[in-house]
């Protein structure tokens, strides 16, 4: 065995396939969307593309853009008005409670009014409310002291913070009067740290009491805000409250607890004796459901286009699984509206004032809903009809117009059904209230359209009908009165058609007679009456609308989450995204096109090597679960195109235009280890390459560990792949 053979036999690494030259995809330009759209002429200010392979008339494209802008503007207006009016009532109420005076109670020391704010789980949202509240309170000239569990970790610190907070808020006029006094106090405190001018400790509560005697206005209170009441040490909190309570006679304290738990849990942390010192008023700060209702009511139901089943599914699921976030709602709606107008050339025909050009017609046949319709025709052996629709453009155009009007009709019915459920039925059924359905949930239930989707089979409507069965006479009467006042045509029709059978005047008469017989009679009649009524509602729910999915061309007029555009853009999957971009880095990194002379060499190098972490990741994908770091390095080194890389690399280093290494001249260490090393003629190319790759490898390997692809194992020279699929 000669030396070469021996080395080969000791190798732990074999590189079988040297890499062929990479092909760069230079064709990928933005602006061509699956060859469907063509950029509009540069003159137009419309950023959208001409659809239908560029055959869309410019005027239509502009119209589309205009509609889009209108729609977004409307959305912005709705959201703006929401944010402006948000919390106004709540803030008003809280301020009112805070400023109200306490009644005297026997103990002289009255209970302290405590405002407990219960936030939603997302901490960020709750914070903004607290800031708003504090600003509002401050504008009402209350004194505000903020405590948090980290700063006020001992009794002394807490008291000091409160006293300091109160006294520093003295109004300017007072300060003027006591200027000398205060200055002396501050000086004294600076020197001693412990004692004030009037020899009192900075945590003596008498200071506050005296301050209040001087500065007390009946309307102004001292608000002590516990920013994170849940994290306070209960023992400390109890003592602090006792202390405040002992001064409550003279000092108008108000406590504000900002809590993320619920009332029971909050109170559990407080001693019973201390509980007795407090009077709680709790406020649910969580207004998200209310906001969602408003958005659905004012925006979605009021918009030209409804949102489709998949999009509503996405949003409801998102809200269900994670934090309900109004900003996110806003973003989703915006993005989906944008996507809708961007890629839907037919959206402009919804209003019915435009003639559909010839070029548009064939594209209708590619729609899924249309194809399903044809399948249905074929299934029912209406071959002729199917053939006509497939071949005759004029007939198809006519069919489209017909279906559009049926779609619009259904949309109206849908809207009135929605209003009927939310405005009339919801008041009389506990199941809607108690299960905390918001309008979005209801919307989703209504728009869900499986093929044989029957509204009455959903749990939601089963519950509603059950609740209706349990209604008493007066509730039912009120319900029918509401129904009779309802203006939407389809619901109105329900009432007018059955006015005779919904007449409850004779029941009222029966009810008024006190005799036992007539009461029995009344009970019988009433249950009969109720049955009729429920049947009517039943019938109404069944027939009021048909699923949108059964109407051909429905996807043209419903804003949907086409091709998971929302998911991909707003909720990218963390790990998957990293992996995908490591595999297809070309789509993220810019490619040098037409690189001319100065960048030529860099470009060459670029074409030879991928970003190094990408190279490393390629190997990572092919390895076993556990791998030796040295092997890993070897594979990494040999998988590169050694000859060319080192040559080009040296050329780049030598090239005067870049002066890569010359930048190191000022840095002693770098000069010593890098500049000299690469300029040393005694060092062979292999060695240079070796060192270079080692540096690269260690750097990138650590990056991968940091990103969680690898874990270090106990024998230090091994790595373990951290593979969790789909995370």
């Amino acid at each position, binding site marked *: 065995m000669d030396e070469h053979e021996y080395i080969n036999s000791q190798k732990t690494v074999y590189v079988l396939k040297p890499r062929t030259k990479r092909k760069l995809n230079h064709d990928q330009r933005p602006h061509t969307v699956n060859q469907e759209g063509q950029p509009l002429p540069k003159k137009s200010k419309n950023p959208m593309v001409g659809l239908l392979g560029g055959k869309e008339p410019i005027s239509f494209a502009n119209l589309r853009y205009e509609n889009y802008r209108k729609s977004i503007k409307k959305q912005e207006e709705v959201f703006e008005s929401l944010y402006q009016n948000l919390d106004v009532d709540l803030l008003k*109420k809280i301020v009112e409670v805070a400023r109200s005076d306490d009644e005297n109670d*026997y*103990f002289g020391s009255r*209970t302290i009014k405590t405002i407990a704010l219960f936030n939603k*789980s997302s*901490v960020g949202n709750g914070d903004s409310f607290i800031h708003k509240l504090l600003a509002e309170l401050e504008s009402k000239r209350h004194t505000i002291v903020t405590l948090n569990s980290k700063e006020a970790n001992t*009794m*002394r610190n807490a008291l000091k913070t409160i006293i300091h907070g109160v006294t520093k808020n003295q109004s300017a006029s007072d300060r003027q009067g006591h200027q000398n006094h205060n200055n002396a106090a501050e000086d004294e405190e600076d020197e001693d740290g412990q*004692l004030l001018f*009037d*020899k*009192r*400790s900075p945590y003596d509560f008498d200071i506050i009491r*005296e301050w209040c005697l001087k500065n007390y206005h009946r309307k102004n209170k001292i608000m002590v805000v516990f920013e994170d009441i*849940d*994290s306070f040490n209960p023992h400390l909190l109890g003592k602090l409250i006792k*202390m405040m309570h*002992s*001064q409550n006679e003279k000092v108008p304290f108000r406590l504000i607890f900002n809590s*993320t*738990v*619920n*009332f*029971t*849990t909050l109170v559990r942390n*407080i001693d019973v004796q201390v509980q007795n010192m*407090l*009077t*709680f*008023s*709790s406020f*649910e700060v*969580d*207004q998200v459901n*209310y906001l969602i*209702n408003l958005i659905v009511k004012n925006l979605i139901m009021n918009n030209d286009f409804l949102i489709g089943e998949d999009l509503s599914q996405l949003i409801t699921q*998102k809200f*269900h*699984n*994670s*934090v309900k976030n109004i900003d996110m709602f806003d973003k989703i709606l915006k993005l989906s509206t944008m996507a809708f107008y961007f890629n839907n050339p037919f959206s402009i025909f919804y209003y019915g004032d435009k003639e559909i050009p010839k070029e548009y017609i064939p594209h209708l046949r590619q729609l899924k809903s249309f194809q399903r319709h044809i399948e249905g025709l074929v299934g029912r052996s209406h071959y002729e009809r199917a053939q006509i629709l497939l071949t005759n453009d004029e007939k198809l155009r006519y069919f489209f117009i017909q279906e559009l009007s049926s779609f619009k009709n259904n949309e109206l019915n849908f809207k009135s059904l929605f209003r009927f459920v939310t405005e009339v039925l919801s*008041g009389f059924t*506990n199941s809607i*209230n*108690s299960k*905390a359905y918001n309008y979005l949930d209801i919307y989703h239930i209504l728009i869900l359209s499986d093929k044989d989707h029957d509204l009455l089979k959903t749990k939601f409507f089963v519950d509603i009908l059950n609740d209706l069965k349990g209604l008493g006479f007066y509730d039912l009467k009120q319900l029918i009165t509401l129904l009779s006042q309802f203006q939407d045509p389809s619901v109105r029709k329900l009432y007018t058609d059955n006015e005779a059978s919904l007449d409850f005047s004779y029941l009222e008469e029966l009810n008024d007679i006190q005799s036992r017989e007539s009461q029995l009679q009344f009970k019988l009649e009433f249950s009969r009456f109720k049955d009729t009524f429920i049947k009517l509602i039943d019938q109404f729910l069944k027939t009021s609308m048909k699923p949108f999915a059964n109407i051909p061309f429905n996807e043209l007029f419903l804003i949907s989450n086409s091709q998971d555009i929302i*998911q991909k853009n707003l*909720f*990218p999957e*963390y790990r998957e995204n990293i992996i995908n971009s490591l595999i297809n880095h070309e789509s993220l990194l810019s490619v040098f096109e037409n690189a001319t002379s100065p960048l030529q060499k860099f470009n060459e190098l670029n074409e030879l090597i991928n970003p190094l972490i990408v190279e490393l990741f390629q190997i990572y994908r092919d390895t076993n679960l556990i791998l030796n770091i040295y092997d890993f390095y070897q594979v990494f080194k040999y998988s590169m195109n050694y000859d060319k890389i080192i040559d080009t690399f040296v050329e780049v280093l030598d090239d005067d235009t870049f002066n890569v290494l010359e930048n190191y001249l000022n840095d002693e260490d770098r000069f010593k280890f890098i500049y000299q090393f690469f300029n040393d003629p005694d060092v062979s190319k292999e060695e240079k390459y070796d060192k270079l790759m080692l540096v690269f490898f260690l750097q990138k390997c650590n990056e991968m*560990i*940091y*990103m*969680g*692809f690898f*874990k270090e194992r106990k024998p230090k020279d091994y790595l373990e792949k*951290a593979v*969790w699929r*789909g*995370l």
Partner: protein
Amino acid sequence: MLTTKPHKLRRPIAREDQLDLLQTYITSNPTTTLDHIILRGASSTGKTTTLQYHLSKLDVISTFVSCDQCLSVKVLFNRLFDGIKLDSGLELDSSYDVYASSSFQGFVKSLRDFVTEWEYEDLHYLVLDRVDQIIEDHEAVYEMFAKFQEVLNCGNFKIIWVMNEEALSLTGIKKAEVFFEKYNRDDMVSVIKGMYGKVCNFPKNFTVVTQKQKIAFWHNYTELITDLYFPYSTNIETIIRLLIRLWPKFIEPVITGGLAINEFLQIYRHNMALLSSDYALQPEHQIYNPLSKQMELRINNDIIKEVSDEQDIPLSKLSKYSRYLVISSYICSHTPAKADYLLFSKLQTYNRRNPSKMKASYDTHDHSLHEPSAYTLERWLAVTQVLYSLHYQDKFVSDIDVYRQIEDLETLKFVIKSDKGSQALSGFAKWRVNLSMNVVQAVSESLGVKLEDYLV
């Protein structure tokens, strides 16, 4: 200003024995009075009231300091010294004050200077009220003031200690002790009966009935409530609070005119539900829910009931994902990583529903006794994913949102990052759960997850 001067007070009820004793011990003659007098007894047994009454009858100077309002001994010195100056009616150069609150020696020195300067010889009682409730270190107070007269070398200052429990540090000194036992039921009723108008009152515009009738009603009311709640608490203060709490609801039928004031039995029957509920024992609480009005839904009691029902489940406000994250974080912290394969594998041979098999291979300690151990982010997510997909048909999508929820859980301190240096979302980061078994159990029950199945 600093001290509460006893004002004209009514004679305390049911405290005759104690008053007799006080008359013997606390006199206006300095030579016959002991240096230390202790008033001892459970809280709200009338110690302070009786003492105040007695001192107001006596023509002596006294200084009251409520120790429970003093954070430390220094504050106590400070208040005491100020009080002495104020109550003695003498003014002193404020240069002494600086020493007065620095230490016991300083306090004594200042006081001695004060005494010598004014030749102050009047009998002066210093009342240390609730001395065992001073916030920091009450033992120190005992030790210092036990030697007070000795150090001061001045006989005219006498100390009256008012405290709940016996103080061992004071056993060695010469003292007189007056013990206040708890009120019995009859005493309590007679004490409370005299409080009409101070504790509870009818509304001012309620003039249909005579004052006499009102007082008769009040007497009945106190008897009733004391009887009902005496087994719950023998503390008069608590009982008075209950009286106050129940009063507005109890008199409602009288105010609205539904029942006459003399039909007490009927009023009692009418309020039966109120009295048998734990309304009075709950903290005073009002729920404001402006939303329900704005939602244009009909407001009825059910909404509020629903709110309170929901509140019984801890963390019910968290989203579904967050709750699963909490559960899996508990599992990760309390099971070794090598058991994951057993617990979450889909292979049938390792049946996770056969805990006996698994337990055999691991120690059978109660897992909830263990300190939670740290786990990596990746493992946490993996366990969450498996757990979620086992209970729901749909997939656990770990997008940006999940990471945000993890951050939220950290801010809420439900989970703790154990190595502070690393970034939260790096593969390195180690976490541990910070919730007790009970809470997690309740959460998992609300989601239908059997937590025990996943703990070895």
